[in-house]
């Protein structure tokens, strides 16, 4: 029961955070509410016995990536007049919801066909660093390496884009 309560709490927070992201006009507000979503998601991961992911979600996502985003938003020093004028934003969101509704309905239908299962916390080190790490470096080694290359490429891409500054100024 306690777990269900926690789940409800995190779930509501996550949805509210996501709704905030979509609705807030200023990206800083959005980012802050998105952080709430990320943190509550971390909690949900913990409820699902994913210990390592729980930690990574907090450290990498909520910590590193979101800090980067927030940092950039602040770095750009965005004034409200710089923001796009989104007339009828709510109408847009309403329309988007109507478009998306069938997708959600379809996905829900699929989920309904799946057998339900309990989500009790698992012991025996499920989702711990060691088993996940073993799995990562044994079965998933090649994808892991490819991802590392991807990271490298994006790093260089970011550098290149930043380096373009000089050419433009010429």
């Amino acid at each position: 029961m306690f777990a269900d309560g926690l789940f409800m709490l995190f779930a509501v927070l996550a949805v509210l955070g996501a709704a905030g992201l979509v609705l807030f006009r200023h990206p800083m507000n959005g980012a802050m509410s998105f952080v709430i979503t990320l943190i509550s998601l971390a909690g949900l991961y913990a409820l699902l016995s994913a210990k390592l992911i729980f930690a990574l979600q907090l450290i990498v996502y909520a910590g590193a990536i979101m800090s980067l985003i927030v940092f950039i938003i602040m770095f750009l020093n965005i004034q409200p007049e710089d923001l796009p004028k989104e007339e009828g934003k709510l109408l847009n969101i309403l329309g988007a919801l109507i478009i998306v509704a069938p997708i959600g309905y379809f996905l829900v239908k699929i989920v309904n066909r799946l057998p339900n299962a309990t989500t009790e916390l698992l012991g025996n080190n499920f989702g711990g660093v060691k088993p996940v790490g073993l799995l990562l470096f044994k079965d998933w080694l090649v994808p892991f390496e490819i991802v590392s290359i991807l990271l490298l490429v994006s790093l260089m891409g970011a550098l290149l884009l930043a380096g373009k500054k000089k050419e433009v100024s010429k």
Partner: protein
Amino acid sequence: MIHSYLYLSIILFCLGVVGVISRRNVFTVFMSIELMLNSANLAFIAFSRVHESMDGHVLAMMVMAVAAAEAALALAVVILLHKHKSKLDTNVFSLLKG
């Protein structure tokens, strides 16, 4: 029980889609994409729990890595965009117009 997690994942995903297609602020769009990635992660972890297999965890880590890479690039692009146009509007990118 696991259904609840999946429903939540669906709701977050749909909100992410709504964010992408209804907002014009680049940061919001970008973070909506992150939201969708996270909803996928949630589904991964949930299924991982159902099957008691940790492959989903590994995949979630991969997604995070991709998200990090994406963040690095996307933010660089945003900075450039702001430099050139002083705008944060996705409608500024209209080079694809036929």
